């Protein structure tokens, strides 16, 4: 099979960036909307002479929680921006998996799916371009999760594997009967992303895909 061309890989990277930024903006909008309504409710209650200490404390707690969640999204977006601008400098695989889950969480919730990570401590720094890693891992994760019925999900397991890192995706739940096998083009793009990342992509019968990343020592 011929490798995917540069234009296809470029389109995949753009689609990944667009999808994740879109979801992050949606999530930020929701946090802002909750903050606006919370502040508005405090004002409404004060105007109506109905505000009390308990209600005010609850509102402050809610605002604090929303600000924390918004800051998490902003932090993830900042790291995504750095990853997209980096050029094969290597990356912290554990943090990248955390970001990947954060970025995919809303998508999963909308599809009634669960994403869980099991990352063994002290992973070595992975080699390669983090943009290729995030794009490829996101594509694999979404494809794996989308093949599950609502209520199912995917477990991402990451651990040292000899001198490298092994990231495996395990579908959990009931497979959709209508789930299609990956299209040839998608598979070619995934293989090309793995090649550019310097990683090995393996598909084992029945389970999800496994990615073997090189580590920087």
């Amino acid at each position: 099979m011929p490798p995917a061309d540069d234009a296809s890989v470029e389109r995949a990277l753009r689609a990944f960036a667009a999808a994740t930024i879109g979801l992050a903006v949606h999530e930020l909008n929701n946090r802002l909307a909750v903050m606006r309504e919370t502040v508005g409710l405090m004002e409404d209650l004060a105007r109506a002479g109905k505000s009390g200490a308990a209600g005010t404390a609850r509102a402050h707690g809610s605002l604090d929680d929303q600000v924390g969640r918004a800051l998490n999204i902003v932090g993830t977006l900042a790291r995504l921006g750095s990853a997209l601008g980096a050029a094969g400098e290597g990356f912290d695989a554990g943090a990248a998996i955390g970001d990947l889950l954060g970025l995919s969480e809303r998508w999963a919730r909308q599809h009634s799916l669960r994403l869980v990570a099991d990352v063994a401590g002290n992973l070595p720094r992975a080699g390669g371009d983090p943009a290729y890693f995030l794009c490829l891992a996101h594509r694999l994760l979404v494809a794996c999760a989308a093949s599950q019925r609502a209520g199912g999900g995917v477990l991402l397991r990451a651990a040292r594997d000899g001198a490298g890192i092994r990231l495996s995706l395990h579908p959990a739940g009931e497979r959709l009967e209508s789930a299609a096998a990956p299209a040839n083009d998608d598979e070619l793009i995934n293989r090309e992303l793995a090649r550019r990342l310097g990683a090995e992509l393996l598909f084992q019968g029945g389970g999800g895909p496994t990615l073997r990343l090189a580590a920087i020592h």
Partner: protein
Amino acid sequence: MFGKKQIKVLLVDDEVEFVTTLGERLRLRELIVDTVFDGTQALAFIKKTEPDVIVLDLKMPGLHGIDVLREIKKTRPKIQVIILTGHGTDQDEAEARKLGGFDFLRKPAEIDLLVRKIKEAFQEKVERVMSAIAFAEGGDIDDAKKIFNKEE
């Protein structure tokens, strides 16, 4: 006839904190508010009771808001629907209006704007029902049905 009627609103959004807080604010403005957290719950709710206006999010677990709007307009055409979304595209807006959505607002929306839109939606519903009654009383049942169901 409808002058003193309190407007019944159903809020549909998967952001529990948002919908709960917004609901409290609307109640303080003398609206009767119920809340549900996805499209399936909304469709189950309108089988039992009929709100005047539904404020509907688009991106929710399970059914997309556009599909919920389509079903509402098929089964309960009198209910007015205002879309309130954090991530609506121009295409979503065009589709919502084509399906009979009353208005399309983006989060976070000013409470005064939302309340005004709810009141306008309710007023339009009242006028439509009264026109339909007038046509029906004049014996023009087909036109009355068209007005009632908001058909072009």
